[in-house]
């Protein structure tokens, strides 16, 4: 039967789902076959009738508005913190921020720590150089009233020296020192056979040091640092920690 191969393809043809070549051949057959043409017409009519009939149910506008609101409520632009998703994001952001802040703080601490470390090792070097020097001091005195005026005009600040009478400490003398290109005073004290250097610089010149007061040891030297009246004091020596503490108390009291 001539119609046989076409009847199976008629639906697909009318749905636009067969290749162009086959479609042309089927069109040719439809022109020649009244039965198939009538069938095609019936199917097309049915397709159109179903299309028209299927459009039947219209949603309630209030329902549509409800869905729209529900989508908008889940949208972050309606509020970063709205909805479950929003809070999850907030936690993520908070975590990232916390990591960054902790990282930043750690970096700053390490950097500052390294900066301070560097200053102290520089001062320890200076102290060692002073110990090794044939002329450890520029101004020799056992009297604080000679040493202090000597610094006038040599450094951009002045400081007070303690009364050492009755203490085991002896002021050997002083010299001008430099730290981070800033001039300061180096005072040399002696307690028994040990020498202690006390460095005094302007606090504002030393951005690396932020701790108010530090006790530590560097290369087995005892180190003390504190600040007073805008000045930063560093004390370095191989004497006992108690000696350094006592001398620092005397200096603080005088300052």
């Amino acid at each position: 039967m001539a119609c046989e191969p076409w009847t199976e393809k008629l639906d697909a043809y009318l749905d636009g789902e067969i290749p162009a070549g086959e479609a042309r051949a089927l069109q040719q057959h439809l022109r020649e076959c009244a039965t198939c043409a009538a069938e095609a017409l019936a199917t097309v009519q049915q397709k159109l009738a179903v299309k028209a009939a299927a459009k039947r149910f219209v949603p309630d506008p209030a329902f549509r508005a409800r869905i729209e609101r529900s989508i908008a409520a889940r949208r972050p632009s309606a509020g970063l913190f709205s909805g479950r998703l929003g809070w999850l994001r907030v936690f993520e952001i908070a975590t990232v921020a916390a990591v960054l802040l902790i990282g930043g703080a750690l970096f700053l601490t390490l950097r500052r720590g390294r900066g301070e470390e560097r200053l102290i090792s520089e001062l320890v070097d200076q102290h060692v150089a002073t110990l090794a020097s044939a002329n450890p001091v520029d101004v020799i005195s056992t009297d604080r009233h000679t040493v202090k005026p000597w610094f006038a005009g040599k450094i951009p600040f002045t400081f007070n020296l303690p009364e050492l009478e009755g203490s085991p400490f002896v002021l050997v003398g002083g010299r001008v020192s430099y730290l981070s290109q800033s001039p300061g005073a180096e005072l040399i004290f002696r307690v028994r056979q040990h020498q202690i250097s006390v460095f005094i610089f302007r606090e504002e010149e030393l951005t690396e040091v932020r701790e108010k007061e530090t006790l530590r040891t560097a290369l087995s030297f005892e180190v003390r640092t504190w600040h007073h009246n805008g000045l930063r004091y560093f004390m370095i020596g191989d004497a006992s920690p108690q000696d350094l503490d006592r001398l620092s108390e005397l200096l603080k009291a005088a300052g």
Partner: protein
Amino acid sequence: MWNYRNKTAVRWFTLVYVSEERLLSGSFEELAMPLFDRLYNFAHWLTQDRQEAEDLVQETYVKALKGFPSFRPGTNFRAWIYQILRNTFLTSRTGLKSTATVPLDMESDEQILPAVKDTPGSILLQRSDRQLVQEALGRLPLPYREVLLLCEFEEMSYQEISATLAIPIGTVMSRLSRARRALREAVQGLQGTEQGY
């Protein structure tokens, strides 16, 4: 300086996250809302009940929005969301009832049936037969009803129907062919009743 950098980084991250999500949500709205009326119509045809249709559409939108990040851009969104709607319906009480009443042998024959050779005059549907066709469509078994709606009303390609119903294209063709015949028979039956046969 470091504080400034930290703040900038936080702002940057916030911007990336928020704009990414805004983009997703924005495009979801843009893709899904134009389909709202049609999805509702389809849902109502499936459930045959206004309240159930609203519940079904609402659940579909919730699921689609939730699953939207997994939707691959460039693929067929319409088929995707219709599939969600249909799957949601099939697992609902009404859906389970509908599928339970479908004859078991419906899909057993993959062969495409030849078009019906009835007298064209008696079955030539007119658009004016709207109510009759609606009645007949409502009486069709669910697989026939949905495939006809997707093809004729949604004007989906066989490929899209195949994706939406998760069946091979061959099955789409055979089911469509049977559905058309079933609809004609249903209309004829209704016409017969009306004419007092």
